[in-house]
């Protein structure tokens, strides 16, 4: 058995000598780096989304509370108005109705079968039930008094009459009031703010153009090795959306977004020659010593992060009670905050880190979007396909022979809260 323990030392020795074909290589590091980048983006995205959610929830709660306190204030003010003019008409009517009901009951007991004509503003139902405690009662209240009633008062009245076991029909009393109020609100409150979260999954790519001033420096293999190996990539954009409605049709839209533009890279080539530059132009290519050949293998996504502030003008058209179509168009200010990844150099084809290249930090883009919105009194949910393109080249013209203008197309998903209930 002790002999077998020698196996341990054989194992230890073998473990120390790693087989040559089992070495870690650059592709392992690239894979780890990609995962670390993704994690970082995910963490930023999560915090951003969390902050926006909290902001929206708090704002929504505050707005709701404001509405509720307005209602209470209206209720109090209406009571004050009536007290200035004298007695509270509602209270008077309730008291009078109680007296009348008692009188009517007495009369019914005597079986006169005759209904008294009461000069007060309350009259009993025409039909006298066999169960007198459930008599329907209609309240005659003047229109100007009706308009001051709030939902809270209605509930109180219903409770009061329920206690007296008398049926009332609130809808008969208040329907006129409701119509009045809704008409007034509708005619005045077209101006309105909306705010909320917008999320846009999109495909981004770019338009490439040669910079005429430096076009002589573009390597003859650039298109084959580099340009053709760069493809569209998936990105997302997330932000705070802000909309102001001027009237029932026109609106202005803005906000702050964290936007990405990306390109999928799949380089796999060998540099076997170097360009000879004379007077700012490639005049010839010299072959490299085979020992100096350089294999370039890089797969991944180049990411450009922007803070975007859109300034759009839009038009909306209602298509049913709850749905409308909105179309908007405008400009976006896009500030380049960060770039990650690597890019093949247009001159020598070697890999450059994006952080070492020069870019325009302030950019302008234009966008158009149109889509369907689900419109509720407090909430708006929209789905709109959009297209955005940079108006200026992202690269610095002084140092880049290839100029790229990123563009994206995707679906904008919007969930907005209305500041005023409509």
């Amino acid at each position, binding site marked *: 058995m002790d002999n*077998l323990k020698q*196996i341990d030392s*054989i*194992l*230890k020795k073998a473990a120390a000598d*790693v087989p040559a074909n*089992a070495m870690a290589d650059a592709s392992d590091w690239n894979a*780890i780096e990609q995962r670390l980048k993704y994690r970082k983006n995910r963490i930023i995205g999560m915090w951003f989304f969390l902050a926006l959610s909290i902001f929206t929830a708090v704002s929504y709660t505050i707005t709701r509370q404001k509405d509720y306190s307005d209602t209470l204030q209206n209720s109090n003010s209406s009571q004050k108005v009536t007290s200035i003019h004298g007695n509270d008409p509602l209270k008077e009517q309730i008291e009078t109705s109680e007296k009348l009901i008692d009188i009517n009951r007495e009369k019914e007991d005597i079986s006169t079968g005759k209904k008294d004509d009461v000069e007060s503003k309350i009259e009993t139902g025409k039909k006298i039930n066999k169960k007198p405690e459930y008599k329907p009662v209609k309240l005659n209240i003047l229109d100007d008094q009706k308009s001051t009633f709030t939902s809270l008062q209605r509930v109180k009245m219903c409770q009061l009459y329920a206690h007296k076991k008398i049926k009332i029909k609130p809808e008969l009393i208040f329907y006129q009031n409701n119509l009045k109020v809704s008409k007034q609100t509708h005619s005045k409150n077209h101006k309105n703010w909306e705010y909320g979260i917008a999320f846009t999954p999109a495909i981004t790519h770019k338009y490439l153009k040669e910079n005429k001033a430096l076009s002589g420096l573009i390597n003859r293999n650039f298109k084959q090795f580099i340009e053709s190996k760069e493809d569209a990539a998936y990105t997302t954009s997330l932000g705070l959306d802000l909309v102001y409605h001027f009237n029932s049709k026109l609106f202005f839209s803005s906000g702050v977004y964290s936007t990405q533009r990306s390109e999928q890279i799949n380089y796999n080539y060998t540099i076997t020659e170097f360009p000879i530059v004379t007077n700012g132009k490639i005049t010839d290519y010299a072959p490299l010593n085979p020992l100096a050949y350089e294999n370039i293998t890089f797969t991944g996504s180049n990411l450009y992060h922007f803070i975007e502030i859109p300034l759009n003008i839009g038009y909306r058209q209602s298509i049913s009670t709850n749905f409308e179509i909105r179309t908007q168009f405008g400009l976006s200010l896009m500030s380049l905050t960060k770039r990650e990844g690597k890019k093949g150099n247009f001159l020598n084809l070697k890999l450059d880190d994006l952080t070492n290249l020069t870019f325009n930090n302030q950019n302008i883009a234009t966008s158009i979007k149109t889509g369907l919105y689900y419109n509720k009194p407090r909430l708006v949910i929209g789905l709109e396909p959009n297209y955005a393109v940079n108006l200026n080249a992202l690269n610095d013209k002084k140092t880049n022979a290839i100029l790229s203008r990123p563009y994206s197309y995707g679906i904008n998903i919007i969930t907005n809260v209305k500041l005023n209930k409509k």
Partner: protein
Amino acid sequence: MISEEELIRRCKEHDRSAQKMLFEKYANKMMAVCIRYCKNQEDAKDLLQDGYYKVFTSIKSFKGNSKIDTWMTRIFINIALNKQRLGRNKYNHYEFDTNFEKAEMSEEVPNEEIDAKIVINALNELPDIYKVVLNLYAIDGLSHKDIAKQLGISEGSSKSRLSRGRSLLNAKLKRKK
């Protein structure tokens, strides 16, 4: 040349170049660990990437009480064992081989000059339950108590698996020789 303390400090600040340096410094050593715990090279590469990702995301918890490579090795082993635990149903079951059984009876051990690749291949051909205990005890230096705790088995089981593992490995090496 940057010191190890400085390298770790920069890794804790998520410095990408420092992370790359740490990767390059210990990649082959960790790859050796990965190969021992995986069936093939592809799995070993996956484990290497998972392990380094875990190292970089939890390096803040490294207090400096041990050497960084020891701490990293422990992380790699934990991930490997967790992976095996999650994929328990996919384990290749040990196939009974009569020649194998006869060979194991002999306690004659091959000499230490045997090629490392052959030894590692033989180790990888063992059933996982023996392979893991051999790895943990003979190479990574864990005690039976620690192995039992790590694998959720008794110390007795750990000892018997080690003994059985040694015999099987010895038989394999003899056949390959």
